[in-house]
């Protein structure tokens, strides 16, 4: 006896649906394997993992949260870019506009700011978790080095974004920060000049920090993350008790 076709059956049986979803509902092991293997976003994972790797108290989700915050920062950052003007004369006014005139502008700005602070903390804590569980040991030593580079890029992303609001907080924090860089032995003055593009923070500094913040450093982070995640798989998955 044939079951009557529901609307859902007709949709999931259609040629259109079947052209982009190539497996059935993931309630059998076969379909659960297929959904991971045939989805571009999910196939970052293997089909099966060790049971301990799903334990929240082992990883505290810190690496995943760092990546998730990067995604949130990318989304909110793109929205802010529609309104923010990287000009020393207009930047501060565009901040005021984002906060007062743009729909959900203040919310986007707050989410971007707090996620940025959160990402610095979560990346740092992720490093501590990986260290204390000995997860850097061979064969994962190179991935640990990539992680240290990602920590540096995270600091630079946060630091370069710090100048953009062009308020007193931003201006003087970056003055202090670039002075610290300028104190480097031998190359200090050159480092300071390259960062500022001037003798003090000016339009040339703002456009340098803006370009670093919205394109160069995110691309560098994305590149390193691709290596980082790939190496997790290649080094035998997430670490665990032997």
């Amino acid at each position, binding site marked *: 006896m044939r079951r009557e076709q529901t609307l859902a059956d007709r949709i999931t049986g259609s040629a259109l649906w079947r052209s982009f979803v190539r497996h059935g509902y*993931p309630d059998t092991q076969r379909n*659960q394997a297929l959904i991971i293997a045939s989805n571009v976003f*999910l196939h970052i*994972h*293997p089909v*099966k*993992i*060790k*049971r301990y790797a*799903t334990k*929240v108290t082992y990883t505290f*989700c810190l690496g995943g*949260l760092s990546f*998730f915050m990067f995604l949130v920062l990318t989304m909110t950052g793109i929205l802010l870019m529609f309104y923010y003007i990287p000009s020393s004369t207009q930047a*501060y006014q565009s901040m005021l506009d984002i*906060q007062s005139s743009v729909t959900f502008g203040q*919310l986007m*700005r*707050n*989410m*971007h*700011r*707090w*996620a940025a602070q959160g990402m*610095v903390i979560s990346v*740092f804590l992720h490093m*501590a978790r990986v*260290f*204390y*569980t*000995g997860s*850097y*040991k*061979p064969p994962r030593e190179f991935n*640990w*080095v990539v992680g*240290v580079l990602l*920590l540096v890029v995270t*600091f630079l992303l*946060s630091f370069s974004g*710090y100048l953009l609001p*062009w*308020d*007193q*907080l*931003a201006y*003087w*924090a970056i003055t*202090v*920060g670039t002075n*610290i860089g300028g*104190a*480097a*032995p031998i190359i*200090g003055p050159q480092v300071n000049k390259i960062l500022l593009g001037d003798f003090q*923070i000016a339009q040339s500094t703002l456009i340098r920090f803006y370009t670093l913040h919205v394109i160069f450093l995110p691309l560098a982070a994305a590149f390193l993350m691709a290596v980082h995640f790939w190496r997790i798989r290649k080094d035998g998955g997430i*670490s*665990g*008790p*032997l």
Partner: protein
Amino acid sequence: MAELAERPGLPAPTPGSIDEAKRQKLLELVRGRALARPTDLAEDEVMVWPSLVVVEAVSAVVFTAILFALSVLVNGPLLDRANPNQTPNPSKAPWYFLNLQELLLHMDAGLAGVIVPTVALVAIAAIPYFDRSPLGVGILGTSSKGRRIIAFATVYSIVVVVGMILVDEKIGRGTQFGIGSYMMDHWGATEFMTGVILSTIIMLIPIFILVGIVKAIFRPTRREIIIALFTGFFVTYWVLTMFGTSFRGHGQDLTWPWNLPLTHG
């Protein structure tokens, strides 16, 4: 042994009959799996969908909810328009660099702001090339001894870092506990000798003392010494950051957090 010896029919073990050099000692009991393991690991494994995907989805939702609530309740700081002619007192770097700014108060700027963080990052990146033993992977702190070392290094680092800041502040900030200024006044020492060389020595001494104490108390493996050092770095980073964010007021003088003007966020 006593029971065995008294059992009839068995010769009593005579002391000294065993070759002392070849006698095996019981070193440690370790919990482990049987040597023979089944080839099918299905019992240890789970399907990523749904077991892992659900954890990721829930943590993403919980995190988004918290971030959303925080962003609705608390606005990001926006002070007056940037004014190069009006230097706020105190001027502070972003909070995650305030540890370096705190160091800067006590020694040469290049040493505090560039050399120390560079050396720290390179040392951290190099850890896996010094500690290659697979022992303890996947166990927080390696062992109960490792966790005791973490606790000890944490307390030690807090006491030493807070103590050094307070003493340097009391004697005269940036005088290397008075030693540097004494060397300058009496021996004609240069800024380089006090701010760089003497300051480096002053920073290295507590690190060597930490390693020395841990070695004396815990008889550590190389991994456990690195645990003590990493914990020292980790705690020092956050203690210095807290001093920079919450206890430095006008003229970078020590003050209480509630007396601070809003200069960072």
